């Protein structure tokens, strides 16, 4: 049993899972106190200098996610929200928080879908974790393996081209999630992208000089062509997500994707983590910059005409979609 599953607190903040939670009432003298209730602090937000105890930290995270959803109209009455559940920490937290918030929305339905890319030594654990989570919540859940959609595993496709892993996987996963959302009858596809992911994307698009992609939003960009994607955790940091899971006894020590080492994102992640550590708020400032640039660019960028892939008919910007172009180069 891991250390953080030591005891259950009665009368806690209302864990959606009812799981065992981290003990936090053994209070040595040198423990900072919660700014809201003077209980023992479990999280220190360096940007705001706030200390929060378990209960106030959990309430703060859930309220911030609710506010993101509310202010951006991410979920509206009647929505069927399909959660892209990999079983890793971000999508696990996303499912837990959305399930917690569900009673506050009118006529909204949640379900989950898992894409099995076929990454040996990595996906087995996260898929097992996803299965356990949806079973606990009694949530509808479907799994779609790459082999069913594309005729092979990601491992097989990447032999000899590991350095392209993230772009290859990204194209295949995007298609797989679109298919899954369509099959499920989803009106929204919710992904677990967190503040770190979003800030990294902003930075990478700046580094690439890709202004259209910088201001493009995956939800508003769908224009009816695909199920709109929403990112309710976009203002919650990776560390906050880890603490949230740990406080609910839902943290699992899962492996990292073996292909992550090849990605430009890995370098950007490391750089931004260092900056955030030295200058708290860096990631949020990047997101604010993006919002300002979006406002400045609104209506000024030439819209790409919607075309249809001459091979598969999917909407795309060129003559052939990225997936069909990629498929020609994949080894089986």
């Amino acid at each position, binding site marked *: 049993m891991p250390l953080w599953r030591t005891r259950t607190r009665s009368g806690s903040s209302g864990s959606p899972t009812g799981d065992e939670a981290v003990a936090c009432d053994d209070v040595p003298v040198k423990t900072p106190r919660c700014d809201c209730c003077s209980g023992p602090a479990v999280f220190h937000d360096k940007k705001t200098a706030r200390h929060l105890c378990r209960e106030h930290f959990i309430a703060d995270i859930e309220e911030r996610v609710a506010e993101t959803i509310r202010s951006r109209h991410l979920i509206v009455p009647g929505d069927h929200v399909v959660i892209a559940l990999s*079983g890793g*920490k971000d999508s696990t937290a996303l499912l837990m928080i959305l399930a917690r918030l569900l009673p506050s929305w009118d006529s909204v339905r949640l379900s989950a879908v898992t894409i099995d890319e076929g990454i040996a030594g990595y996906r087995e654990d996260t898929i097992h974790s996803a299965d356990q989570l949806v079973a606990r919540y009694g949530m509808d859940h479907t799994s779609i393996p790459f082999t069913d959609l594309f005729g092979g595993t990601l491992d097989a496709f990447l032999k000899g081209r590991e350095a392209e892993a993230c772009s290859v996987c990204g194209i295949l996963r995007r298609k797989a999630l679109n298919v899954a959302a369509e099959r499920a009858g989803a009106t929204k596809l919710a992904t677990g992208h967190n503040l770190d992911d979003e800030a990294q994307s902003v930075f990478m698009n700046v580094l690439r000089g890709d202004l259209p992609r910088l201001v493009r939003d995956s939800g508003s960009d769908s224009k009816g062509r695909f199920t709109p994607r929403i990112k309710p955790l976009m203002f919650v940091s990776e560390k906050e997500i880890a603490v949230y899971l740990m406080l609910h006894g839902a943290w699992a020590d899962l492996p990292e994707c073996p292909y992550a080492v090849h990605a430009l994102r890995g370098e950007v992640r490391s750089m931004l983590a260092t900056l955030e*550590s030295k200058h708290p708020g860096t990631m949020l400032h990047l997101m604010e910059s993006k919002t300002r640039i979006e406002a400045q660019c609104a209506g000024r960028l030439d819209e790409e005409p919607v075309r249809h892939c001459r091979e598969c008919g999917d909407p795309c910007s060129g003559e052939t979609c990225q997936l069909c172009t990629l498929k020609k180069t994949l080894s089986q």
Partner: protein
Amino acid sequence: MKIILPDKTSRETKAGPVTVEALVRDLGFDPIEVIVARNGTLVTEDAVVENTDEVRIIRIAHGG
């Protein structure tokens, strides 16, 4: 102080009393990439750990 590292190995040190942040940096980690439990309880980076404590350092895996 017993320190349990992310790879599950452990070591003893007499570094305390020291802040969690100083300890973590001394061990070569960036505090933003780890979470620390003191005697089974999550603590903040400005909390203090003593030589009698068991300190567990958990690395936040990326992705998911």
